[in-house]
């Protein structure tokens, strides 16, 4: 009997020309997946579909739409800050792990920064999967002990009078930063605003930059 298993599923199969065709981790993943499949605990097609979803369909754009709506709709913003889980679910972005969402509003006086010191809990439904640096030990440890230094590394220098608040995510509680709406964006549509909002701004390692055109107009 030959055991069916997925080959590739569109991630670009790796060529193994030499003596050790599969790495240790590849073998372990194949072993686990084939056993779980035989026991009826996972379905390879469902795994592929989930991967496809996270690789190409979910990403920081969901979060950007949430933020843009909060910028243009005060009633939505009020609901978002009062009960983010419900307000975000209302836009169709629902957590798979039953986690609660909390939205943290940046102001001229307070800057919020999100980390997960233990592993890398992250608001998947709105931001997709975390970037490498979010998962790294240096970020996980230094965001707490030296948040201003971390922000400087990301190119964000905050005035002394701005209070930096660091939020440690957990399996049950995930945070999304509501960045400040940049100047020069008056009159922009929700969609145009969403295009300005970056993943890093919603983690708190960046601010949302004004659009280049708006900057030119402000200078001229």
């Amino acid at each position: 009997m030959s055991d069916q298993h997925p080959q590739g599923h569109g991630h670009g199969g790796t060529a193994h020309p030499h003596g050790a065709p599969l790495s240790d981790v590849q073998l372990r993943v194949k072993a686990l997946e084939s056993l779980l499949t035989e026991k009826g605990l996972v379905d390879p097609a469902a795994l592929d579909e989930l991967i496809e979803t996270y690789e190409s369909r979910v990403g920081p754009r969901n979060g950007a739409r949430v933020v843009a709506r909060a910028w243009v709709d005060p009633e939505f913003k009020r609901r978002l800050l009062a009960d983010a889980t419900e307000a975000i679910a209302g836009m169709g972005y629902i957590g798979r792990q039953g986690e609660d969402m909390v939205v943290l509003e940046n102001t001229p006086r307070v800057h919020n920064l999100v980390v997960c010191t233990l592993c890398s809990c992250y608001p998947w439904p709105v931001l997709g999967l975390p970037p490498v640096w979010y998962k790294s030990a240096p970020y996980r440890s230094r965001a707490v002990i030296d948040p201003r230094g971390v922000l400087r590394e990301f190119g964000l220098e905050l005035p002394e009078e701005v209070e930096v608040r660091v939020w440690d995510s957990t399996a049950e509680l995930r945070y999304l930063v509501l960045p400040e709406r940049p100047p020069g964006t008056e009159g922009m549509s929700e969609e145009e605003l969403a295009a300005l909002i970056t993943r890093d701004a919603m983690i708190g390692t960046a601010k949302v930059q004004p659009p280049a055109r708006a900057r030119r107009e402000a200078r001229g």
Partner: protein
Amino acid sequence: MTPPERPDPRTLADLPAIPRDDEGPVFREPWEAQAFAMAVKLHEAGCFTWREWADRLAQEIRAARERGDPDPGTTYYRHWLAALERLVAEKGLVGGEELARRKAEWESAARETPPGRPIELRREG
């Protein structure tokens, strides 16, 4: 946060720098995606709670750092896979011995497969 017990000078030099990326692909290799999806699907099937999962993952990451892994974020799915193997064994879903046997089978199947051909697992029926 405590640094590793016996810091390698190179590790120390690496530590302050936060690896950066440009919103690139979320998985570096296909196996990372497979490991990710298995944990999510097993949780959805009710095999374990997300709290249990997050605890095991945090344990693996902590243990790796204690062994001296600078943990630059690129080894994250290695820890993820180790946590998953441990949790499915604890839950009685897939035992460690069973897993080791199957891994050896895949290894010999891979060795016997000419380059460019799909690797198939052949077992006595």
